[in-house]
C-alpha cells in the first residue's frame, strides 16, 4: 500500500499543477480577474512531492523488490546509506527527484513576503507549468512506482560505481542547481508577462540565482571529486559530454551573475540578463536530455531509452519558443543604459559576459560536433580534451587578465590608481607569480608560467580591493578561487606523471627521488563485495614515508570488478595508486600516478562556493531583521 500512496501523491501533483496552471492562465488572460492564487497549491505540491520521495526512500530501505525500480537498483546486502542514495541512482528515481525539486523551489518562492502580489503569482504560474510537464513525464514515461513484471526475491544491486559517498551528494546537488534555474526563468518570464516590464525582477531573483549557481557549482565539484577518487581515472575533468552538459548552464549562469550586477545597479545589459536567465534553464533541460537519452557517447552509461528523450525535447522546445518569443515581443521596450567609457567596470562586466558566452558556445560546439559528423555520415569522430584545452586556454588567459584589472576600475568611468602604478603593480605581481613557479620546477613551461603570473595579478588586485573596502565580498573570494583553480588545472595538466609496473609482494622500484615498496597483499570481505588490498609504502630521500592501500573489489551480485584507488595528498600534489589486474599468482599491475596541484583545484572551487555564501547570508540577515522588526511593529 505504501508504494501506491507515493504514486497517488505523484498523480495528485500532476493533476493539481496542470489544473491550477490552466485555471490561473484562464483567470489571468481571459477574465482578467486576479482572484486565483497559486500559493496554496504550490505549498501543497511541495508537501506531496516530499511525501512521494520519502515513500520511494522507504521502499528502498525496506527492500520492497516487487517494485521494478527498487529491484533494479538495490539489494538486501547493500548498506542502508547507499539504499537511500539509490533513490536517485537510476532514471525513474531521478525524474521523481526533478519533480520534487521543482515543487520544493516553487514552494519556497511561495513563502516570499510578497507572494500575493501579481508578479509573484505569475512566477508561481510559470513554475506550476514546469511542475505539470515534468510530473506527467515522470508518471507516464518513467514511473518509479511501477511493479516488477516478475517477482524477485533479491535486487540487482546498485551499480558499484555509484556506491560511493559522492553519489549521495553529487546528483541531488546537481539537480537542485539545474532546477534552481527554473526559478530564475520563471522570474524573468513573469517580468515579461506584465504589460509594463518590471525591472525589479532582478532584485527578486538575485538570491535564487546565487543559490542555484552555488548548488550547481558544488554538484559539479563533488562529481569531479568523485570521478577522481572513485573511478580511478586519476583526472578531475574529462570533457565528457555529460560533464559538458552540466558546464553549459554553469557558464551561462556565471555570465548572468555578472550581467545582473550591471543591470541591477546601473541599468546596463538588461537584455543580456533576460536572455541569460531564459537560456540557462533551457540548457539545464538540454543537459538532462543528453544524460537521459544517451544520444551522445559518454562514460555516464545510463540505461537509455530514446522515447524518453522525445518528451524532454518537447518540453525544451516549448520552453525555448515561449520564452524567447515573449522576449522578442518586449525587446523594443527594454532600454539599457549605455556604457560611459571603455575603461569602466561596466564595460569589463560586459566583456566578462561576452567571454562566458564564447566559452559556452565553444563547449556547445565541441559537445555536439561528433553527433553532427556522424549524422552526416562522415564517420565517427571524437572531440576530446585537446580541442577543449586548446580553445579554453586563451579564453582563460583573457579572463584572468580582465579579472585582475577590474578591481582598479570605477563603475562609470576611470580607474582608482594611475596608469603608471597599474603597470607597476601588474609587473610586480606577474614577476612574483612566475618566481613562485620557477622555484618549484626544474623544467618550466611558458604557458604554466603565464597562468601563474596572471593568477598572482588577480590575487594581488583583489587583495587591494579587500584592503580598500575592508569587506570580504563574493567577487573577491570567487575571483581568487578561480585564480587558484586555474593554477591547479595547468599545473595538473603539465606537471603530472604516471608509470605502470608489475609488482609482487616484497619488491620495490625507485622513482626520481622516492622508492615504492610493495609490502603485502591482504584479503577481506566487505558487506556486498570481496576485496584484495595491496599495502604499498612510499619513502622519500628527505626521510618522509607513508603507506597507501589500493584495492580491487569484486561485487558478486553484479559480477563487476572495481578498482579502489588509494591516494596520499600533499599541498603540491597527490600520490595516486591504482591496483590493476592480477598478472600472475603473486603480482599485480600497479599504476602509480603523481597528480600535481590537485588540492588547489578543490580548494579554489571551495573558495568560489564559500564566496557565494556571503550574499546569501547577508540576504538571510536582512530577512531576519525585517521579520523581527515586523513583529515588533505588530505588537
Amino acid at each position, binding site marked *: 500500500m505504501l508504494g501506491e500512496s507515493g504514486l497517488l501523491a505523484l498523480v495528485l501533483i500532476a493533476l493539481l499543477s496542470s489544473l491550477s496552471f490552466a485555471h490561473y492562465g484562464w483567470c489571468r488572460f481571459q477574465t482578467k480577474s486576479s482572484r486565483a492564487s497559486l500559493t496554496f497549491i504550490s505549498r501543497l505540491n511541495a508537501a506531496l512531492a516530499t511525501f512521494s520521495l520519502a515513500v520511494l526512500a522507504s521502499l528502498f530501505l525496506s527492500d520492497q523488490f516487487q517494485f521494478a525500480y527498487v529491484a533494479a537498483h538495490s539489494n538486501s546486502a547493500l548498506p542502508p546509506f547507499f539504499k537511500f542514495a539509490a533513490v536517485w541512482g537510476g532514471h525513474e528515481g531521478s525524474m521523481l527527484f526533478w519533480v520534487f525539486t521543482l515543487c520544493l523551489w516553487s514552494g519556497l518562492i511561495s513563502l516570499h513576503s510578497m507572494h500575493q502580489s501579481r508578479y509573484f503569482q505569475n512566477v508561481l504560474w510559470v513554475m506550476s507549468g514546469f511542475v505539470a510537464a515534468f510530473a506527467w513525464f515522470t508518471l507516464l514515461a518513467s514511473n518509479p512506482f511501477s511493479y516488477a*513484471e*516478475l*517477482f*524477485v526475491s533479491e535486487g*540487482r544491486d546498485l551499480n558499484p560505481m555509484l556506491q560511493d559517498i559522492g553519489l549521495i551528494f553529487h546528483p541531488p546537488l546537481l539537480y537542485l542547481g539545474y532546477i534552481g534555474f527554473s526559478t530564475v526563468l520563471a522570474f524573468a518570464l513573469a517580468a515579461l508577462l506584465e504589460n509594463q516590464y518590471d525591472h525589479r525582477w532582478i532584485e527578486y531573483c538575485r538570491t535564487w540565482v546565487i543559490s542555484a549557481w552555488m548548488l550547481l557549482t558544488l554538484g559539479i565539484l563533488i562529481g569531479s571529486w568523485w570521478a577522481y577518487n572513485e573511478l580511478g581515472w586519476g583526472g578531475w575533468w574529462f570533457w565528457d559530454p555529460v560533464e559538458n552538459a552540466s558546464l553549459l548552464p554553469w557558464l551561462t549562469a556565471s555570465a548572468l551573475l555578472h550581467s545582473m550586477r550591471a543591470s541591477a545597479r546601473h541599468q546596463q545589459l538588461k537584455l543580456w540578463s533576460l536572455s541569460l536567465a531564459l537560456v540557462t534553464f533551457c540548457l539545464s533541460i538540454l543537459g538532462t*536530455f543528453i544524460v537521459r*537519452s*544517451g*544520444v*551522445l*557517447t*559518454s562514460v555516464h*552509461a545510463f*540505461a*537509455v531509452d*530514446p522515447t524518453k*528523450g*522525445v518528451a524532454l*525535447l518537447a518540453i*525544451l*522546445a516549448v520552453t*525555448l*519558443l515561449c520564452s*524567447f*518569443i515573449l522576449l*522578442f*515581443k518586449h525587446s*523594443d521596450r527594454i532600454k539599457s543604459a549605455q556604457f560611459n567609457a571603455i575603461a569602466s567596470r561596466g564595460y569589463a562586466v560586459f566583456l566578462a559576459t561576452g567571454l562566458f558566452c564564447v566559452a559556452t558556445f565553444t563547449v556547445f560546439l565541441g559537445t555536439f560536433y561528433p*553527433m*553532427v559528423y*556522424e*549524422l552526416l555520415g562522415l564517420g*565517427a569522430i571524437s572531440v576530446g580534451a585537446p580541442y577543449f584545452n586548446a580553445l579554453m586556454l586563451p579564453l582563460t588567459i583573457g579572463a584572468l587578465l580582465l579579472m585582475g584589472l577590474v578591481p582598479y576600475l570605477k563603475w562609470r568611468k576611470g580607474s582608482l590608481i594611475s596608469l603608471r602604478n597599474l603597470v607597476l603593480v601588474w609587473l610586480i605581481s606577474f614577476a612574483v607569480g612566475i618566481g613562485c613557479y620557477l622555484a618549484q620546477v626544474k623544467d618550466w613551461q611558458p604557458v604554466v608560467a603565464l597562468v601563474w603570473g596572471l593568477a598572482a595579478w588577480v590575487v594581488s588586485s583583489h587583495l587591494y580591493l579587500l584592503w580598500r573596502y575592508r569587506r570580504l565580498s563574493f567577487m573577491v573570494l570567487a575571483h581568487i578561487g578561480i585564480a587558484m583553480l586555474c593554477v591547479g588545472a595547468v599545473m595538473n595538466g603539465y606537471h603530472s606523471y604516471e608509470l605502470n609496473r608489475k609488482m609482487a609482494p616484497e619488491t620495490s622500484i625507485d622513482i626520481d627521488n622516492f622508492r615504492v615498496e610493495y609490502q603485502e597483499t591482504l584479503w577481506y570481505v566487505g558487506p556486498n563485495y570481496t576485496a584484495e588490498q595491496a599495502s604499498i609504502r612510499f619513502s622519500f630521500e628527505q626521510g618522509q614515508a607513508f603507506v597507501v592501500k589500493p584495492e580491487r573489489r569484486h561485487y558478486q551480485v*553484479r*559480477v*563487476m570488478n572495481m578498482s579502489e584507488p588509494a591516494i596520499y595528498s600533499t599541498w603540491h600534489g597527490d600520490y595516486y595508486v591504482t591496483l590493476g589486474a592480477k598478472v600472475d599468482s603473486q603480482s599485480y599491475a600497479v599504476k602509480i600516478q603523481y597528480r600535481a596541484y590537485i588540492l588547489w583545484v578543490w580548494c579554489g572551487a571551495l573558495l568560489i562556493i564559500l564566496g557565494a555564501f556571503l550574499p546569501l547570508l547577508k540576504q538571510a540577515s536582512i530577512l531576519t531583521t525585517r521579520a523581527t522588526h515586523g513583529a515588533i511593529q505588530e505588537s
Partner: protein
Amino acid sequence: MALFKNRKVFIFILLVVGFVGFLLAGLQSETNGNRSQTVVRTFPVVSTTLLNGQSIESASSLLGDEYQLVNVWASWCGICKSEHSYLMTLAQRGVPIIGLNYRDQQLAATGYLKDAGSPYNEIIYDPKGQLSIELGVVGTPETYLVNASGEVVYKHYGKLTEKAWQKRFARYFDKGMTL
C-alpha cells in the same frame, strides 16, 4: 519595424526547430551514442564446457554460421522465461542461437529446457561466469550478435522482443528466411 521583428521571431523558430530536429534525428539514428560500440569485442577464445558435459577447446569454435545469436540465460532468471517463447519462434524461423547458461546449476538448467523446449543449437555451461565476464555480461538476459570470425556485432541488453529484432537483428538474417 514590425516586419523585422517578425523576421527575428521567424529565424528563431527556424533555429529551434532545426536544433530539435537535429537532436531527434540523433535519437533515431542507430550509429550514435551508447548503442554503438567504439571497440569491436571478440568472442572469447577460451576452453569451456557444454551443458551436456562435453568439454571443448575454444568457445569460438561453436560459431559455425555467418551470423548467430548468443543468448545469455539462466533458469533462475524470470525475464529469460518470458523471453523464451520468442527465442523458440526465432529458432523455428531458422536463426542459429547459441545458449550461454550463466551461473546456473546443471540440473535446473536441463530441467528448464526439458519443460520449455530448447531453442539453442549448442549450450555453453558457465556456472562460475568465467566466460561471461570475458564477454562482458552484465546481467541476464542478454543477446549478442556474433559473426563467424567471432566479432560481436551488436549487444542487446534485456529481453529480446520482435521490435528490437526488426530494428537491430533482422537484416543480418534475411537471406533465404521468411522473417
